């Protein structure tokens, strides 16, 4: 349960930190690259991928420790 809470709380903290960073960087995010596409659109897609990778990597580290303990 401790590992699940650690994963959940770190994921929650990172997500809210991303929101806060977006609020600070809003003028940059609004800049248009071409047509309707803005810097924020590209950033958002990259952020979603990196966020998923963060969750997965953290979980792998937590599992690796518990499986190593069991051997």
């Amino acid at each position, binding site marked *: *349960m401790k*590992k*699940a809470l650690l*994963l959940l709380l770190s*994921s929650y903290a990172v997500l809210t930190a991303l*929101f806060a960073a*977006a609020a600070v960087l809003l003028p940059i995010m609004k800049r248009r690259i071409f047509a309707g596409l803005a810097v924020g659109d590209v950033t958002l897609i990259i952020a979603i991928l990196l966020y998923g990778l963060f*969750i997965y990597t953290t979980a792998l580290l937590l*599992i690796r420790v518990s499986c190593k303990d069991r051997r």
Partner: protein
Amino acid sequence: MLIEAASAFLTGVLFGRWWVPYQKRRGITSRDIYKGIDGVPRAGGLIAMVGAAVGYVLASASVAAALPLLVVAVAVGLLGLLDDLRGVDEYARVLFPVFLAFVLARAAEVRLTIPMVGLFYGATGWLAVLAIPVMTNAFNMLDPVNGFLPVANVVVAAALAAVAALRGQIDAVRLLLVHIAASLALYLYNRYPAKTFNGNVGSYFLGASLSTLAVLYDLVPYLILAGLPFVVNGALIIFSSGGIKGREKIARPTYLRNGVVYQDCSSPIVSLVRIVVADKPMEEYHIFKALSATVLISSALTTALAVLLKLLSLPI
């Protein structure tokens, strides 16, 4: 406000009294692996769908959003029911909610307000509507033990109702109360030891109902925050299994011995249940309590965040 919710609950409970034995008689059943029992009805989620549908129809007399919500949620729920009865191609399961989401984006005015940031500059809503297929599949991926899915829906919907109340969105609160009431009716039949499983109809309907509500009332970021255990579990499964797959096609990263669930260290798949039992092997009911605690924590944090943003006069 409470009439629709009360009607949803009562309809769900009364419908369940007929639907659960009917499934048994017709052989719409599967095996409860934790308890080693065969013949457990497998499409109990229809209880929530029927209950909520009555509530949404009653609300539609005065709340315009109730009708598109009803159409999208019931359509996705029926796809889940079809899947429970006959099986549906996994691409259809993913693409149908995507199709409905884009229809909704064209038909309704959809906005995306991000906490602290404000209205998303594009304001086309195309990103917000993706919450419908994403959350529907995320709900489908995390329905591992008796009682968890309806309880999680009650808790997450209550957090969204609190945020909506802070914003003064009374209509959203009304519809969320219907969702909560329908989930509670389902819980009566799905609680440990379950009289019926939720089935794909349950996870699909509840996922579509809650995410469509969030899209229509600009609550998507709060749905992601409050329902973070579902998002985390979905991300873990997608990254570890290499794509979106139906839950039947993903090998369990856990194994059962004498009613106790252990993590399978040889499995490449990672899920939230595996993380939960990584510290200590658990019985089914303890997994239910642990998963419910994660949803309770993420929902409480989300409500607290909305209150804080309101106090600081930041965009909610």
